[in-house]
Every structure is written in structure tokens, then in C-alpha cells.
């Protein structure tokens, strides 16, 4: 099994010329590429046995000003997962769809658009709301979205006309 991993790593290194290639866990390869290379890499990996897109997701690296797109692929014959990662500019969150390579990505792209605000060109559905109907704030999984502040502004504390002062073990005055 280690042989097939090493062989695959060598193949990926030669074919895709990734920026970096890592082995984060047993039978898992992380391959970091330029954003422009993502589609070529996915097409190559799909043709070499990675028939399934397990998940497409995103990480917001707010301090670097970048979004990292993560495509996790599965090869069921070998039992190997590949993470294909690419960073795009956070101020210009536009990327091309991969639905022509992995059709199942359609809803993942829609979800990433909804929660991170990344636009996927060529995925005509991606702008439609899916989970969050009538959302009126910045995309919620971005790091600069504060759920506590949003919740406080949406559901403000009500003023109560009676103030309960008493507490267990308090003095007589407090209890009155």
C-alpha cells in the first residue's frame, strides 16, 4: 500500500508540479497548487482513479487576505484521499466552477457561495440561497462575521418592567 502512495506522489509531482505536497495522515495526500492549475489537476486526478468528490469546502485565512479552496477526492480502488488546495484573493472571491468535471460539486459550490461569498462562474445556481433564506449580513462562515453581535442585533434583549433583585443568600434589602 505504501508503494501505491509513493507512486502516486511521484506521479503527482511530475504531472502537476504542485507548490507543495504533504502527507497529513495515513493514506492521504495534500497537494497545494496555484489556483489556475486547479481544473487541470482535477481532470488529471479524476482520470487517474479519483472518481469521487467527497467534499468541496473553503477556509478563510483572513490574516493572509486569502480564501483557501479545498477539494477532497476519493479513490475507492486504492483507498486514498487527496486534498487539492488552492488559495485565491479574498478581496476578489471569484473562481470557475468544476461542475463540468465533478457534477456533484454543484451544491457544494452553492454552499460555499452562501457561507463564504465566493462566486463560482459557470454554476448558474450558485447565487441562489440554499440554507440561509433572506440573509442580510456578510456570509456567516467568514472569520470577520461575529455570530454573537449578529444575534444581539437581531434579537435584542427586552426591557423588563420588573427587576428581580433577590438572589439566594442575599440580604433582606435585596430580597424586597
Amino acid at each position, binding site marked *: 500500500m505504501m508503494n501505491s502512495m509513493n507512486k502516486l506522489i511521484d506521479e503527482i509531482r511530475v504531472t502537476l508540479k504542485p507548490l507543495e505536497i504533504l502527507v497529513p495522515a495515513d493514506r492521504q495526500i495534500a497537494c497545494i497548487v496555484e489556483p489556475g492549475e486547479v481544473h487541470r489537476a482535477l481532470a488529471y486526478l479524476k482520470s487517474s482513479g479519483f*472518481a469521487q468528490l*467527497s467534499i468541496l469546502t473553503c477556509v478563510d485565512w483572513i490574516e493572509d487576505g486569502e480564501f483557501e479552496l479545498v477539494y477532497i477526492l476519493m479513490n*475507492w480502488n486504492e483507498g*486514498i484521499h487527496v486534498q487539492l488546495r488552492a488559495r485565491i484573493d479574498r478581496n476578489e472571491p471569484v473562481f470557475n466552477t468544476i461542475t463540468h468535471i465533478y457534477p456533484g460539486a454543484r451544491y457544494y459550490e452553492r454552499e460555499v457561495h452562501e457561507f463564504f461569498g465566493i462566486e463560482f462562474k459557470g454554476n448558474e445556481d450558485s447565487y441562489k440561497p440554499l440554507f440561509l433564506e433572506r440573509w442580510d449580513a456578510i456570509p456567516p462562515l467568514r472569520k470577520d462575521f461575529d455570530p454573537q453581535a449578529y444575534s444581539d442585533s437581531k434579537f435584542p434583549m427586552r426591557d423588563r418592567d420588573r427587576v428581580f433583585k433577590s438572589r439566594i443568600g442575599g440580604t433582606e434589602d435585596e430580597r424586597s
Partner: protein
Amino acid sequence: MREVKLFLGPQHPGMHGNYSVHMYVDGDIINTARPTPGFLHRGFEKLMERRHWMGNLALIPRICVPEPDINEMVYAMGVEALAGIEVPEKAHWIRMLVLEMARIAVHVMGLGFIGGPTGMYTATYWAIAQRDLLLDLFEELTGARIYHMYIVPGGVRKDIPEGFAEKVLEKMDELESRIPEFEELILKHPVIHARAKDNILLPAEVVWELGVTGIGMRSSTGKKNDLRKVKPYARYDQVEFEVPTAEYSDALTRLNIKVKEIYQSIGIVRQVLAKMPEEGEVRVPVAPGNALRWTVPAGMVYSAVESNRGEYGYFIVSDGKEMPYRIAVRGASYPQGLMGVEKYLKGYRIDDASLWMDSMGVCSPEIDR
């Protein structure tokens, strides 16, 4: 005839949880179907970024309501891979025991819940009764019935109590003797045959298009694509079990496979109890001092386990701090629950829609997170 818009859900008998499908029907044939999740969205991925690594343990089982243990397992596996923790030998076996008992409980429930969309509630009641007896065992082992919070990074919380193994074996014997009754009631029932046979088809090309895993994938491709075999975790490489498959996938085939998997899981539970080391640690401390102040080394890892519905995974990102930087959840039924509903529910009749949901194994809490 004029097209009419109908709503399936958010409450309906084909689902564990709230999930809605907007259907445009002509007569009783569905012309267009639009999945509408969001009724159960609790924002787990965001909440997890704001809690400590150990504090998340209380949150993660709630992501998939009917099957909580896989969440604990997949989280523990991912964090252990990031932090480089070696789990004690006995903990692996206890984890397998818990996972397989959970698999049986969910499969029994799923088998009985076919009664929901087909109107045969006897099966549902029987299944709930059997599952409850399994939950009693979980209660003894973990202190909780549904959300166990038992598998933690570094092992499991506690060793199994004395005399527990005998109780499990006794329950497995009883369950094994009861499953034929389920088969008699469900798989040989003329109504189920009329509704499920040659209905709700799942061809192999649809499996690959959507990314369906689990029973759906195995029942149509004929491949033994089970993560327990393909990419073994815990000690699944040291137990023997078969992966039931089929070449033609309709709702009845998938029910049949469910029953076969229950038998296999019972076999695994017996092997686990026989092979489990008698003595030994069940948990290693993850950090010196307070585990709540534990910092996990920076990294990104994807961990996956085989759930009842297929590949269930977490993508975990750490930036070396006390809280996760990001956790993304791959719900096992995400592909068929969203894109599958949109593309492949049309053409079926209204009364088959909830059967479609049930037999495809759509689980709304893991889609909504």
C-alpha cells in the same frame, strides 16, 4: 392539467428531521422538485470554531441525530492525526464495539422506518422497541442514551463496566433471533414488494455523478466500497466481515442489504468482544495539565469513517491554537439529499417521494449541520 405546487415536509414520515421538498406536480407525477434545506441549520461549523477542542465533544454528536457516534469517531481520528496521538490498543476495540452497536441500532431503526412512507407502522414500533434495548446498553456504558460523548481524542472516556460484555452478547443473540421476524414482516410483505420492488432506482452512473456512497453505491456498482475495508480505521483490518453488494439497486435491494449488514455487524461485535484485550489503558492524556487548554498543532486533515449512509468525513483545520480554525462536515447523504432530489426525484409519483427519501437514506441533520 395545470401544474400544482406541493410541499413535502418539513415534517414527513420519510425523514429523521425537518427537510422540505417543493414539488411541482401534474396529476400525481412530480415534474420538478426543489430541495429546501435550512430548517435544521444550527450553525455547527461556526460554533465549533468558537469552542475548545475538548469542548466541541458536547457539540459534535448532535450533527447527525440518529447516528451520533460516528461524529465522535471521525472527530477523534482527525484530531489524533493532527496531534500525533497514539490511541491505546484496547480503546480501538471499545470504539469498534460502540460503532458497530450504533450501526445495528440505526440499521434496525432504518429498516423499521420503511413503515413510515409505506404505511406499515407495525414495523416502526418493533424497530423502536429493539433499538431501545440497545440504547439501554449504551446507557450502561456511557451514561447517555442518544448522545454518548464517549469516544474522545486519545481513546474512550472509560473502560467497559464489569459484566457488560455478557449483556451485549445476550442482546446480540436475542437480536439475531428477532431479525428473521423483521424479514418476514418487511421483506416478504406484499405491500412492501408492490411499493419498493423496481421502484426508486439508483443506476451506477448516477452514483458516480452525484458522489453517492454507502449502501447506495454498493447496491448498484457491485463493488465492496466500504471504508472499513478500503481504508480500515481502528482495528477493522483484524476482524472478518463481508460487505454485501448487489448489481441492481431498487428500494427493496437496499433494504435487503441493510438486513445483511445487521448480521455482519452482529458478527463484528462478537469478534470484538472475543479479541478485545482484557487489560490495558483506554485513554491517553492528550496534554499535560488541563485538557481544555490543549493546543493542537497546526495542520489540515480529512478524516472519514463508514457511516450507515456512506462516507462521513470531517475536514479539520488547526492553526495551533486552543480552538479549531475551521471544521467542515461531509454529511454522507449530502449528494443524494440535494442534487439527487433535484435531478432524480422527478418522474416519480407523489406518494413515492417520501419513500425515495427513506430508501436513499437522506438524513437532514447532516445536510443542514
